[in-house]
């Protein structure tokens, strides 16, 4: 039987009642196991994400606001990857979905690396990557990079020769305030003065004891960071960023078939999620990052990243309208996941997942 380790999104349950129809799952699942916050990145120190053998995967950087723009941060990350590749004499495999986040990676390589360094790059993609962004493929991927169209997602064969680069966990640095998704009135209250409202709401679902614990944890975490997180909406962003980011990184280990200490070591050393670069996380909590999240419509979503791509392509249509073909935005703007002790996770705000959960897990 699987053991529930981590509930990364207790926060969604705090939504005002009028928005609850989005999350029609059985609230009885929202129990708080003793390990609930094991992986939360806590305070302003770098708490390492760890699994059972205490091996570090990805440390959290010291969180302080920076002045660099998204473009500058991306350039830094690109040079960092090139240096890392040279230091370890490894090629670079970019998992390109065709979406905005992974296209930024290729755009930065095209912008900053020399043509001879392009030969170090292998683009892993699927048929859907092409349909997601055919213009970029035709004009930039095919002429410049070796590419391989794959129909599986196991990474074992790549571990020896490549640094594995993907667009994780971009959604966490872009996560718009929930106020945009659900209406600003109810979530625009000050956290300091209205956190009791949130606590009362959670208490109805999980009881006073765990609600108090959760609020205390959130409060301590925020206070320790000296971050400008003033509204309840800001706090939602932070919860998603701080906790869910860790969960997303751990998730990728599922792409390794042969789970053993050796593959785990290679994975932890050479899996290179692009948006984990510490400057990205610091950018996300800076003024620039906050502005990027205060969007009025979906055209503005990830605009800084789209502008970075636009510097290369000069394609205004993509600048304004590029979205994911498999976008969850319409049906399910935010989804919640649980992590189990075998590393698997599940989305919990959909009925079919819940019934599977009941049948096979609980």
């Amino acid at each position, binding site marked *: 039987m699987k053991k529930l380790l981590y509930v990364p999104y207790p926060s969604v349950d705090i939504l005002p009642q009028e928005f609850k129809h*989005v999350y029609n799952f059985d609230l009885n699942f929202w129990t708080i196991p003793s390990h609930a916050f094991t992986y939360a990145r806590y305070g302003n120190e770098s708490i390492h994400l760890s699994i059972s053998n205490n091996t570090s995967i990805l440390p959290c950087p010291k969180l302080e606001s920076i002045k660099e723009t998204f473009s500058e941060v991306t350039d830094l990350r690109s040079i960092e990857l090139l240096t890392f590749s040279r230091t370890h004499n490894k090629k670079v495999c970019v998992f390109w979905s065709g979406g905005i986040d992974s296209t930024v990676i290729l755009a930065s390589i095209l912008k900053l690396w020399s043509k001879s360094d392009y030969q170090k790059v292998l683009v892993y993609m699927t*048929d*859907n990557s092409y*349909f*997601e*962004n*055919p*213009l970029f493929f*035709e004009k930039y991927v095919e002429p410049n990079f070796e590419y391989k169209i794959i129909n599986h997602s196991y990474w074992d064969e790549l571990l020896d020769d490549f640094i594995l680069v993907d667009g994780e966990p971009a959604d966490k640095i872009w996560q718009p305030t929930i106020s945009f998704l659900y209406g600003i009135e109810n979530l625009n209250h000050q956290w300091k003065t209205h956190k009791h409202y949130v606590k009362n709401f959670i208490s109805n679902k999980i009881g006073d004891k765990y609600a108090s614990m959760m609020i205390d944890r959130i409060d301590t975490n925020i206070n320790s960071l000296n971050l400008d997180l003033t509204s309840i909406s800001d706090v939602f962003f932070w919860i998603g960023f701080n906790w869910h980011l860790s969960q997303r990184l751990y998730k990728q280990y599922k792409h390794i078939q042969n789970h053993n200490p050796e593959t785990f070591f290679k994975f932890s050393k050479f899996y290179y999620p692009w948006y984990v670069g510490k400057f990205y996380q610091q950018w996300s909590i800076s003024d620039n990052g906050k502005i990027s999240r205060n969007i009025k*419509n*979906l*055209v503005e979503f990830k605009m800084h990243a789209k502008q970075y791509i636009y510097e290369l392509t000069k*394609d*205004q*249509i*993509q600048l*304004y*309208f590029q*979205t*994911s*073909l*498999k*976008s*969850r*935005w*319409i*049906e399910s703007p935010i989804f919640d996941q649980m992590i189990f002790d075998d590393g698997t996770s599940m989305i919990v705000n959909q009925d079919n997942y819940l019934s599977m959960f009941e049948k096979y897990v609980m």
Partner: protein
Amino acid sequence: MFTIDENSEYFSWGIPTDEKKEIFCLYASVLDRFIFITNSRENAIQLGILISSKINTIPIRIDTSKNYSSSLIDNSCCLRWTVEDNQNINTFSPYSQLTESDIIHFRGYLIESNLNYDISIIDNINTIRNYLFVAQWILLQNDCNQTLNFKYGKDILPCVFGSNLEQIKKLQKECFESLFLCTDIKTILPKIKNNVQKIKEISRYI
């Protein structure tokens, strides 16, 4: 700037003269608006595929909505319209995996969109609509000249019409590929018109 208005040969209203016919729109989730109307299910799918290189759209049948009437919405004004509750519009896999059952029959209310966009965004929406009008025009040109035998027999009876059919298919494919991968419609319009003219000429002998 190249524009297609109601007087252009490429323009189509998108609504049928026959009230009983189905009406489909392409709904752009990124804009929360309808960007194009057509009265053919096949065309809605084909147009959605063709424009997917530029914007992601969802085909929605709207004559099933609570307040649809043919005087309410057409291609001259559909940009102002959206669905009342987009939470009920399920997204689907990429167009390469689209099935008939993915097409939504919208049962709610059509409403006027309250989102406002900058002029540069509106310009680019119009550019996208230009592609759709031209693509629709190509489809309609071919459709007018096709007998049912020509339209459906070609796929299951490859020997029918011989080399003429192959030539037509090649000319059509060139048009659609150029629309799919084009970034400036003006540069491909002469070739498209030329191909459509050739198709018409070849079709006369079928």
